[in-house]
């Protein structure tokens, strides 16, 4: 398959700061419409990988194609085809939720009326209508996440990058977002690249996952394959994940001074 035919394609992706290796020879092939989970512990390099895949950070080495666009050559063109929800949400806090979504839509080239229509629809679906006129600065973390999520969707991108999308979001809203994402993936053919350190969430949503540890991919495959591996070892998927990411089980002992 040609790199431009993949939803996301990365080959020998590496990045480092000084002596510190952040990503090392990361290879990814995500087909269009796939719901791909990128798992790893805090500091594994997930956010750096997302920045590189979205064209926000030039990797030191490697080749990246997303939605048929060479990321390193056409980063501005790429923005038209992707939606990004980063872990550190940056929103204009002095705008209201509605104003921000309309702005995001228009900045992607939608007409004012189309941007407004889509903003209304998204706010209603994400249960933000009651707070649509309030400044984003007054929103809770979960509401900010939902606004950022809506802004990533408003231009109907072909690929969605979601970095820890459920952090700070309540259970009902998480369910809402999950349903929406599954529909986008299965019905609309949207490629979804999703990072998390919560194994259950990936198990529930993703068709395929990769486990990243210290900048290297330790395991890649379908959830069923990983589960089968775990079953062969007589353990759970969570334990496989903990093994792959080098979790120190000695730290699980109780505090004897408490």
């Amino acid at each position, binding site marked *: 398959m040609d790199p431009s035919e993949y939803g996301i394609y990365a080959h020998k992706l590496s990045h480092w700061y000084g002596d510190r290796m952040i990503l090392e020879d990361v290879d990814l092939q995500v087909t269009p419409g796939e719901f791909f989970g990128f798992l790893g512990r805090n500091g594994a390099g997930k956010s750096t990988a997302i920045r590189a895949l979205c064209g926000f*950070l030039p990797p030191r080495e490697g080749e990246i194609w997303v939605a048929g666009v060479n990321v390193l050559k056409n980063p501005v063109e790429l923005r038209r085809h992707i939606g990004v929800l980063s872990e550190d949400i*940056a929103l204009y806090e002095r705008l209201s939720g509605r104003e921000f979504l*309309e702005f995001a839509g228009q900045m992607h080239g939608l007409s004012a009326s189309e941007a407004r229509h889509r903003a209304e629809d998204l706010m209603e679906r994400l249960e933000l209508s009651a707070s649509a006129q309030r400044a984003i600065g007054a929103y809770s973390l979960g509401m900010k996440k939902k606004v950022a999520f809506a802004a990533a969707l408003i231009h109907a991108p072909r690929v969605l990058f979601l970095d820890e999308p459920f952090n700070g979001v309540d259970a009902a809203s998480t369910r809402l977002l999950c349903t929406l994402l599954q529909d986008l993936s299965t019905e609309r053919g949207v490629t979804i690249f999703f990072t998390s350190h919560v194994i259950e969430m990936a198990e529930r949503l993703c068709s395929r996952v990769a486990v990243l540890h210290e900048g290297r991919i330790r395991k890649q495959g379908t959830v069923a394959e990983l589960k089968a591996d775990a079953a062969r070892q007589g353990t759970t998927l969570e334990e496989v994940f903990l093994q792959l990411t080098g979790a120190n089980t000695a730290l699980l002992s109780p505090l004897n001074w408490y």
Partner: protein
Amino acid sequence: MSFWKPIQILLHVRRQVARTKLAANPTAALWTLLVILLLFLTALSMGHKLGAHWSDLPRTDAEESLGGLWLKMQAFWLLALLFPGGIALLGQIPPRSTLLSFRLRPLQLFVAEHAALLLDAPSVLAFALTFPLLCFQVGGGQWLEAGITLLAFLLLGLQTGICARLLTALSALGARRARRLALIPGLTAFLLLGLCAGMPPAFASLTSPASQHLLPAHLALPAQFPAVDLAPLLPSRLAAHAVMATRQGDYWGMLGALGSMAGCLFLTGGAALLALRSEDRRWVASESGAVAPVKPRKPGPVARSLSGPYPEIAALIRTEWHLLLRGPQTFLPLRKPASLLLLGVFAFLTPDMGRNPIYNLEEFLAIGTLLYIALWQMQFLCNRFGNEAGTGALLFGFSIPRIRLLLGKNIALFGLLLVIDSPLLVGMAYVAEVPENIGLFLKWLPLILLTLTSLGNIVSVLHPFAILKQERHGGKEPPDMLAGAYILVGGATFVLLTPIAVLLPYGIPGWIGAGAVMSGLYIASLYSSNALLARREYNMIAATAHFDA
């Protein structure tokens, strides 16, 4: 627990915060301290002028001078306390919600807040204005007069602190939208006030022969610029009256003035307590979830006036205006070490141009206000992607062609500065008594702004000026020291404005010629900054999103 214990704890926390700030960025803290020292010395020299002439001044002039000095001191002290980006050194005043969680009694809360509010740099600077007078009074053996001066100063300080708290509480109680709407005229009024208060004496002293400064008659106010007739009931005037009455041995007059001040203080304090109680009730209600749910409103009409062939440019302009006009105090450059340094050096080097003991303060206010406006505008012009307070990288996540991004930002800022600067120029022309030049000023203003916009485009993509970053709880000071960049940009502006200076005397043909040159310059800057941005976009994203590239 004793009455003072919680207050001590709060002050201790404040000291810890200051210590952490100092440890986090010692260079910036050191520069800020140096600037405060410069301003302190300037304030001392201004106070010294009044103190040195104090015994020679006739009663009316002395009272007017002291009253005027204290009025300005109170006004600027109040402003320093009110603006989040003011010159507070130790850090933000603890939020009301934090104080309420200590379960303090209302009076303890009141005292703690005032102590936290007043123990800071603005108080030190205010005291420096009065301190020399106290020294001269003590040196002259006028112990009672010195005591009354100190008492009057303390009462004024207390009233300033209470006024600041009252205004903050009232603004918290007021509607968000009303507060937002009040900020712009408030800020403009403050700038105009600075100009109007300082411009006549500054112009008078600049245009008067230097030899006049040596004559004893200088101590009197000049006839062509009469002193503002201050209302006798103003606390500053009452304070000055109390001091003068002591000097004249009129103790009943002194007691009357002090009593009136105490009355003022009591009224302000009562109003502040009432406002604070309402604020507390509101906070407690919001914590317990008793606040009425926000009723969804009908969406307003889409602003079609700005929709054009490029919806992204229209959206960008509209959003840029929203960001700049909602909470303009966020962008005050006064706390930045670089601008403070420039202002401090300027204040220290201001020559003695005054003919009245308090004139130097007014000159400083006039020229300082102009310098301040220039710094404020330079900051915006030289950081097109900083107006979003640390979220500039968001813009690079859109697929809008970068030249349109620059164009939209330019149009928005050019329009905004034109709207702000035009009335300022008109006001200045009237104050400086040259209304016949208003037409000339307004005709050339767009060309000057176009030149500054051109220069700002290049600086914005090469070495953007720092603007306050957004944080969950208030802004964070940018650590960069940019005094050198300010000076370089100032020099470049001077060079780029040469065609305007050369063509100014040629009337309309000169304006057309200068317009052609400046338009060419702007187009060149737009395309060059676009090309630079294409090469530096990753760096810009890393800088505005605050991660390592």
